[in-house]
C-alpha cells in the first residue's frame, strides 16, 4: 500500500496523524508508516489538482510493501460511495468474487479542483478506483467469453439515485480492423471512441440512468462472446514498461537491477525513476550504472539522499532519457546489514520486502489524441490524463522485491550475554591478578597422593617437583 500527500504546512506531525486516521478509516495498516519508510521526493509526484506551487519539501511519500488488500479494506472503501453497495454499479462489488482474482487494487485520490470554468471557488474531488483482473480463461473452461453474472455473480438492477452519471464501458476495439470478431449483448445504446494510451479504442456504452436500458428486463447482464476461436494473440506491449529484480548470491552483498523498456519505434522520451530502498540494504551510489544499448547513459538529474540507520530510507530519483526502441538497465549494489534481534519480523527467513520503484513519464503516443472535454467524459480525462494531444502521463510501479538478510540466532540472547561477559571477565580477572598481586616465595606443604603422582610425572619430564 502506498500513500502520498502534499501538505501546506507543519508536515511531520500532520503526516503521522494523516496516516493514522487513514489507517483507521480503511482498516489498512497505514499506521506502520513512520520515518523509516517515508521519503520526500523532489520530482516524482507532482500534484494533479490545483496547488499553490509550494515546494517539494512539503510532499511526503510512503510505501508499505508487505501489506496486502483484503475484505476489510473493501468494506470501508465501499462505504465512501454515495449509495454504498446498495444501488448502482457498486452492487457488483461483492468480496467473495472480487478477491477470487489475479490482481486487485484499490485507490482513493483526493484533489482540489475548480468548481467551474472561472475558478472562483475550489472544491475537493474524491476519485475512487478499483482495478480487478479476472482470469476467465483459466476458470471458464478455456473460453474467453465473460458476463457480469459470471464474474460478479450478480447483475445490475438500477442506478444509484444520487449519481449524476452512471455508465458501463465495454472495450470492443476491433483488432487488425476486423469487425464482427466479438459480440456484446445486450446491444449497446451508443458507442464511444477515444484514444487511450496511444491506442484508438472503441467502447460500448451502457447508461444506467437512461430509462430505455431496463425496459426489456429488470436487470442488466452484459455478456461478451467471441465469434471465432481466438488464436494465441498476444497483447500489444505497452510503450513503457519496466522490470526489477535482485541479483547476487550470499547474504552479504547484492545488486538491484531495473530494466526499462521503450518500445516506441522512433520517439525518445525522459522518465523519472524514484527508488525507495530501506535503510538495512546499504546502497553504494558509486556502483550506480545506467547502460542503454551497451553504452553508458548519464542521467540529467540525480537526487540521492542516503539512508540513516533506523531513521530514514534511501531515496534515489533520476531523470533518464530513454532512446527509441531500447532497453535501459540501471544497477546499484548494496550490502545487507545485520539487525538487532527485535527488529526482525516474526518470520525472518521469509525475507524483507523492498518497495516498488515508481516510474513517471509523459509517454508520446503513436496516434494523436484530441483534447476531451471534462464534462462529457470525466472518466477518460481523469483516468488517462494528457496535457497536450501528443503524449499522456503514465506512472508505473515495478515489482516489490524480496531480500534475505543474515539473521542472528534468536534463541541465544542470554547465552550471548553470558559468554561475551565471560570473555571480558577473563581479561579483567587476569589483569586484576597481575596488577594487584605480587610475587612471593611459596611456603612448602608436602603430602597428598595427587601431589606425589604429579611429582613422579614431573621427574620424568625433568621439571622440578611440586
Amino acid at each position: 500500500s502506498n500513500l502520498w500527500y502534499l501538505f501546506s504546512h507543519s508536515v511531520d506531525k500532520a503526516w503521522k496523524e494523516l496516516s493514522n486516521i487513514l489507517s483507521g478509516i480503511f482498516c489498512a495498516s497505514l499506521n506502520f508508516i513512520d520515518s523509516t519508510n517515508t521519503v520526500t521526493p523532489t520530482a516524482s509526484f507532482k500534484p494533479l489538482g490545483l496547488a499553490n506551487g509550494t515546494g517539494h519539501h512539503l510532499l511526503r511519500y510512503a510505501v508499505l510493501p508487505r501489506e496486502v488488500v483484503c475484505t476489510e479494506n473493501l468494506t470501508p472503501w465501499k462505504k465512501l460511495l454515495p449509495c454504498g453497495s446498495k444501488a448502482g454499479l457498486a452492487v457488483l462489488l461483492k468480496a467473495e468474487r472480487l478477491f477470487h482474482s489475479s490482481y486487485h487494487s484499490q485507490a482513493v485520490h483526493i484533489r482540489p479542483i475548480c468548481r467551474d470554468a472561472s475558478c472562483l471557488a475550489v472544491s475537493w474531488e474524491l476519485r475512487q478506483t478499483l482495478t480487478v483482473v479476472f482470469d476467465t480463461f483459466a476458470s471458464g473452461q478455456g473460453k474467453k467469453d465473460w458476463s457480469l453474472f459470471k464474474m460478479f455473480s450478480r447483475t445490475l438492477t438500477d442506478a444509484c439515485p444520487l449519481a449524476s452519471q452512471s455508465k458501463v464501458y465495454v472495450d470492443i476495439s476491433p483488432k487488425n480492423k476486423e469487425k464482427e470478431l466479438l459480440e456484446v449483448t445486450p446491444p449497446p445504446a451508443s458507442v464511444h471512441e477515444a484514444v487511450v494510451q496511444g491506442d484508438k479504442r472503441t467502447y460500448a456504452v451502457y447508461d444506467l440512468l437512461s430509462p430505455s436500458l431496463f425496459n426489456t428486463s429488470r436487470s442488466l447482464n452484459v455478456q461478451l462472446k467471441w465469434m471465432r476461436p481466438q488464436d494465441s494473440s498476444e497483447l500489444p506491449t505497452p510503450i513503457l514498461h519496466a522490470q526489477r529484480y535482485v541479483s547476487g548470491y550470499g547474504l552479504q552483498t547484492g545488486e538491484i537491477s531495473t530494466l526499462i523498456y521503450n518500445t516506441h519505434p522512433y520517439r525518445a522520451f525522459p522518465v523519472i525513476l524514484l527508488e525507495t530502498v530501506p535503510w538495512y540494504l546499504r546502497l553504494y551510489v558509486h556502483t550506480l550504472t545506467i547502460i542503454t544499448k551497451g553504452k553508458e547513459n548519464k542521467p540529467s538529474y540525480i537526487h540521492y539522499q542516503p539512508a540513516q540507520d533506523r531513521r530514514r530510507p534511501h531515496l534515489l530519483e533520476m531523470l533518464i532519457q530513454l532512446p527509441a526502441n531500447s532497453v535501459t538497465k540501471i544497477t546499484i549494489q548494496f550490502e545487507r546489514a545485520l539487525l538487532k534481534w527485535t527488529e526482525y519480523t516474526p518470520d525472518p527467513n521469509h525475507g524483507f520486502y523492498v518497495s516498488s520503484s515508481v516510474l513517471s513519464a509523459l509517454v508520446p503516443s503513436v496516434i494523436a489524441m484530441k483534447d476531451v472535454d471534462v464534462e462529457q467524459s470525466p472518466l477518460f480525462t481523469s483516468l488517462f490524463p494528457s496535457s497536450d494531444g501528443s503524449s499522456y502521463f503514465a506512472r508505473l510501479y515495478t515489482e516489490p522485491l524480496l531480500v534475505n538478510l543474515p539473521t542472528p540466532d534468536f534463541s541465544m540472547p542470554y547465552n550471548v550475554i553470558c559468554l561475551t561477559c565471560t570473555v571480558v571477565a577473563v581479561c579483567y580477572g587476569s589483569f586484576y591478578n597481575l596488577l594487584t598481586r605480587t610475587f612471593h616465595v611459596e611456603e612448602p606443604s608436602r603430602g597428598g597422593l595427587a601431589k606425589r603422582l604429579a611429582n613422579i610425572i614431573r621427574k620424568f619430564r625433568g621439571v622440578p617437583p611440586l
Partner: protein
Amino acid sequence: VVEGLALLDLGVSPYSGAVFHETPLIIYLFHFLIEYAELVFMVTDVLTAVALYLAIQDFNKVVFRKQKLLIELDKYAPDVAELIRTPMEMHYIPLKVALFYLLNPYTVMSCVAKSTCAINNTVIAFFILATIKGSAFLSAVFLALATYQSLYPLTLFAPALLYLLQRQFIPIKLKSKSFWLYTMQYAALYLCSLVVIICLSFFLLNSWDFIPSVYGFILSVPDLTPNIGLFWYFFAEMFEHFSLFFVCVFQINVFFYTIPLAIKLKEHPVFFMFVQIAVISIFKSYPTVGDVALYMAFLPVWSHLYRFLRNIFILSCVLIVCSLLFPVLWHLWIYAGSANSNFYYAITLTFNIGQILLISDYFYAFLRREYYLTHGLHLTRQDGTEAMLVLK
C-alpha cells in the same frame, strides 16, 4: 571511502548517510590519491615498518643504558647474569620487529583489502617513534592525529607521558612541581593540536556533521556488521532496555585499564604502551586484523621473556586455528547457508580469549622477570630447598 568521494561528487554531504564514517582529512587525502590506492597502502605499510624499526633501535639503546645504570647501582641480585640483556642479542630485534610487521599475514590482508586501518597504524607508529626519540611536540601531534582518526589512542597519552617524564629525569611524584608542569605542557600540546585538526576538518567540509558520524558512531555502535570483535553479536542479541548501559560498560572497559597499568608499570612505559595498544585492539568497537598486526609487531622486543611464558604454545595454536577458521565459518554462514551466526561468533570469542591470554601471559612473564632481577634467580626457602614463585 570511495562511497564518500562519490557522495561528495554528487553534492551530498558524505555524512548524511550511514555508510561513510571516516574523517574529513581522509576524504581529502584520498581525493588526490584514489587512483594510486594500492600504492598508497603499500607505502603506508612500509612507513609503519620503518618507523617501528627506528623506534625499537632507539628503545634498545635506552634499555641498555638503563640496565647499565642499574647494574652499577647494584640494584640487581648477584646470580642473574643469564637474565641480563646483551647488545649482541638485541642487535637484530629492530629488524625482526619490522619484518614481523611487514610479513604478518594480517598486515598483508589489510593491505590487500585497502583498509584505512593501515593509515591508523602508520600514525600510531610515528607517534611511538616520536615518543621514543623524546620529541614531546611531535609525539603530541601524532597522538592528536591518531585520536582524531579513531577515538581510542587517547589512552596512549599516559604511557607517552610516563616515557617522556622518564627521559627528562623528572620523578613521578604527585607533589612534585616539575611533574605537573611537564604534564600540563604535554597535555596542552596534545589538546591544542587536536583542536586545530578538528577545526581544520570543519573548514574542509563546512559542517560539524562529521563529529556524530565519526565519534558518535565509534561510541554508540549502531552498525552491527559482523567483525572479529565481541561487540556486534552482543548488541544484536541485547535486550533493548539495557543497550545504553552495556554500550557504556563496553566503552569504559577500554579506557579503564589505563590508570591501574600506569601505576603498576610506571617504570616501564614502553611495555605499558604495548599492553595498552593490545587492549585497544581487542576491545575497540570495530576491531580489524590490522590492529592485531600492530601489537603483534612488538612481540620480538620481548623475546627475552620466552622462558617465563606459560602457555605460549597453546595460545599460538589457538590464534592460528582461529584465523584459519574465520573465513571458513563466515563463508558457511553467509554464502553456503549451512552454518549459523553462532559458529562465527564462537570463533570470535575464542580468538579474543586467545589474544587476551597472550597479553596477560606476556605481562606475567615481564613481571616475573622483574622479580627475578631484583631477588635473584635461584630462590631458596628458609630451609635451603628450592622455592617456587606464586602470585599472592
